[in-house]
């Protein structure tokens, strides 16, 4: 069997710098899935874009060949004219991208953007073309293809947009689909469904897939063969069975070790009866009022958070898990006093065991200032949370500056101490943020949060923008400082595997409500709620023998009104949160 796409000795560089992709070779056969695995900067994206010759203008292909099997023998894609290359793109080889939010033009209707593929490749014969597009929409799981055809991208959710992208990629019936991190920007449950969809389509049409990803779990679920890349070179290549079952190369093993997993072992930690909460939220709701499109239209209400009841125990971590729009970030903002909850709520904060609790809903100025010293935040995106024009020293000293603490020398000393805590060195004080990698920036952002000597940290998805191996290190750091400084965390995440590692208690949120809450052991090994089950089932495991069970995912991940009767939400009416085990609460009708 001859390869459909064969890349040999590919070397790509920018300007005069050493190549960023170095002597990379891989091939895909008809109907097969090849996974290109690596962390950011490994050159995996450049390599697959080189196959379609859509590289950034500054990149030069220095050596190598790309051959695509054609009807009349193999085609060397490097030698084709730009015009003939356009015939290949979208027709024989199509591509989907990482960010469905930005990969569709915001100003054109979905139908227009999809049917364009057929028009470009001369397959548009009037009514047939539209029918073909509608059939494709149906195929990718849109319930009302006609409506999607007329919709604009901003009217669809991320998952729907990625489905539209897939429709666009397969409508021309390509021989090869290149998927560049197609699910990285999506929620786990959506990711599972999109991956399942790609697999199904592949089964139907027999197209080959090149899947670019950093997630070994995704690889285990999708790939027939795997090529592992690091720093522009191929580290290891082989069948999925070989690579995932018995990785040979050290780098692959490291990747495996770093991949977050839901732990196997069960040890029941009983919750103390008399718990010492640093932050306790009772009856907390948040309703946003949206103006109508015109002054005379009625206002609409968005119930972002409804009736939250939980507390962060001193020296422990409470994790709040949910997909985008579940209300978890609103929770975090209220816990920091950055957002005021609806009247009737109480959010009590107790800086130490014997201190008087203050209610964040009713702070006076002195109390607020005091609270702000005690509660700090670590943000999601380490690239945008550090001012690019401020040196590390200024960024670190700023909180103390604002609170008027210490002399300049004392502030610098404190900054040095904190840098050591997070594993960076003193001589980095005078650098600017751009000199740091993503992981180092997240360390800086943690150091900044620690400057005021807080007792309580809110971590809003602190690792989701980082590579797996770096993610592991940052989690470890967070655990260490928590234990040594006796900090308490409210940890917001969409990733159950990350949470499994660090949390002492987990609350799963959906649609502004906590659907299940309890110690991680109870939640992971005895999940009661269909949504928690769906989240767990959707979590891709780097184990080829444990594929995602899409049935479980679709049962729980759908709209809350489609859940089994016992659990169903119906508009404003939701079942009560009921205790089913020690500290284990589930929202259902008993």
């Amino acid at each position, binding site marked *: 069997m001859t390869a459909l796409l064969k890349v040999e000795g590919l070397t790509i560089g920018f300007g005069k710098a050493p190549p960023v992709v170095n002597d990379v070779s891989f091939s895909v056969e008809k109907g097969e899935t090849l996974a290109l695995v690596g962390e950011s900067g490994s050159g995996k994206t450049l390599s697959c874009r080189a196959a379609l010759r859509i590289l950034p203008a500054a990149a030069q292909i220095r050596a190598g060949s790309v051959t695509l099997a054609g009807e009349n023998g193999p085609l060397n894609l490097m030698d084709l004219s730009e015009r003939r290359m356009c015939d290949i*793109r*979208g027709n024989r080889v199509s591509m989907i991208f990482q960010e469905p939010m930005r990969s569709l033009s*915001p*100003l054109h209707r979905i139908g227009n953007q999809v049917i*364009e593929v057929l028009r470009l490749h001369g397959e548009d014969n009037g009514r047939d073309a539209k029918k073909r597009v509608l059939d494709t929409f149906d195929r990718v799981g849109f319930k009302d293809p006609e409506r999607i055809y007329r919709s604009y991208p901003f009217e669809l959710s991320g998952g729907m947009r990625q489905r539209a992208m897939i429709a666009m990629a397969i409508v021309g019936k390509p021989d090869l689909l290149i998927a560049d991190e197609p699910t990285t920007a999506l929620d786990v449950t959506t990711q599972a469904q999109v991956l399942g969809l790609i697999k199904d389509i592949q089964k139907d049409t027999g197209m080959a897939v090149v899947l670019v990803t950093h997630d070994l779990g995704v690889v285990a679920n999708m790939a027939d063969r795997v090529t592992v890349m690091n720093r522009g070179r191929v580290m290891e290549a082989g069948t999925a069975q070989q690579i995932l079952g018995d990785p040979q190369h050290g780098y692959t093993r490291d990747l495996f070790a770093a991949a977050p997993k839901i732990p196997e072992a069960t040890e029941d930690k009983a919750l103390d009866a008399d718990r010492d909460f640093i932050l306790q939220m009772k009856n907390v709701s948040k309703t946003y009022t949206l103006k*109508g*499109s*015109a002054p005379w239209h009625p206002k609409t209400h968005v119930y972002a958070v409804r009736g939250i009841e939980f507390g962060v125990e001193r020296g422990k971590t409470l994790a709040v898990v949910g997909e985008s729009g579940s209300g978890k970030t609103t929770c975090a903002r209220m816990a920091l006093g950055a957002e005021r909850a609806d009247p009737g709520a109480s959010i009590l904060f107790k800086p130490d065991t014997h201190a008087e609790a203050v209610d964040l809903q009713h702070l006076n100025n002195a109390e607020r200032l005091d609270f702000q010293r005690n509660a700090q935040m670590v943000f999601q995106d380490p690239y945008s949370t550090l001012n690019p024009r401020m040196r590390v020293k200024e960024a670190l000293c700023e909180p103390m500056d604002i609170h008027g603490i210490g002399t300049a020398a004392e502030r610098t000393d404190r900054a040095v101490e904190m840098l050591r805590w997070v594993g960076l060195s003193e001589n980095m004080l005078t650098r600017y943020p751009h000199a740091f990698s993503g992981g180092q920036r997240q360390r800086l952002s943690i150091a900044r949060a620690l400057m005021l000597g807080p007792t309580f940290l809110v971590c809003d998805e602190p690792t989701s923008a980082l590579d797996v191996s770096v993610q592991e290190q940052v989690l470890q750091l967070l655990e260490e400082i928590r234990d040594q400084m006796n900090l308490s965390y409210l940890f917001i995440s969409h990733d159950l595997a990350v949470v499994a590692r660090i949390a002492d208690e987990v609350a799963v949120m959906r649609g502004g409500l906590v659907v299940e809450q309890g110690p991680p052991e109870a939640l992971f090994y005895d999940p009661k709620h269909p949504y928690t089950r769906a989240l767990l089932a959707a979590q891709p495991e780097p184990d080829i023998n444990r594929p995602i069970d899409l049935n479980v995912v679709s049962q729980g991940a759908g709209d809350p009104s489609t859940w089994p009767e016992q659990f169903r939400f119906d508009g404003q009416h939701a079942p009560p949160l009921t205790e089913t085990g020690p500290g284990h609460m589930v929202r259902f009708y008993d």
Partner: protein
Amino acid sequence: MAMIRFAIFRLITMLATLLVVSVLVFTIINLPPGDYLSNQINELRATGQQSGIAKAEFLRQEYALDRPLWEQYLIWMGFAPGPNGFAGMLQGEFGWSFEFDRPVSEIVGGALWLTVLVNLAAILFVYAVALPLGVLAAARAKTWVDYTSAFVGYLGLATPNFLLALILFYYGNRYLNLPIGGLMDPKFEGQPMSFEKMMSVLVHLIIPTFVIGTSGAAAMMQRLRANLLDELGKPYVETARAKGMSESRMLVKYPLRVAFNPFVADIGTLLPAMVSGSVLVSVVLGLQTIGPVLLTSLKSQDQFLSAFVLMFVALLTLIGTLVSDLLLALLDPRIRFGGRS
């Protein structure tokens, strides 16, 4: 349907804005102490010319300048009856120019249309030049095409308009036999519109259009280039390439369409900038537009004339904004459906 509702809504806000502007204009004009007539009366008293004083006093009463300011405003706008009943802006009575001793409408009449004509021509010129050059500069970014157009553009921005006007007049007249000054041949002035008169106006328009439009075109070209370059880096451009679109077709259909928004939004600000920016040019070139009139009337506190001109400029601005808002809503579904999601 939604579009019509939006248009009506915008029209209502525009009228409300115009009302606020009228208050502001009136206040600002009356901020300096005295008015044209009281200045004149003082001057006449000093030189002892009694007959003139009587006429000035009569005018003061006729135009209610002896009343409190708020009453003057209401009478000027036509909200309240003056000495001659309701005779304000709303009734189409624009008042009397003391400086020229003629009704405002008579002085301004012809100049209004010429102003609109000159500025529309300049705006068309701006768009006609900026669009292709901006797109070209972005598509061929960092090549000699880009650098040359940027260089010419900066020259256009940096050269004072009146200087450019003088230079162009000289060379235009010498080599191309273009007329100097004015907006038409003197023999057509006051004549009814005819083909010859139109041709004469068009020939006279060439240099003013170029002079008034150059800096605007240069600035807009740079803005379009920057916007387009931003858009070219967006993922949807890559999607379009991966579909197999040719570069030029892709450029026009996707990024240009998105980069068009600020381009269209500029209409609103361009119009007033042109009108006020062309005052000096109009003086230098001897164009019979409203610019020189505004200048004289402001200098001599000729309040009805200057108020009318300012209101006219404000109206142009608001119409410009209205047009650009409606165009934006037509162009961009996100704005059109803004309130829906």
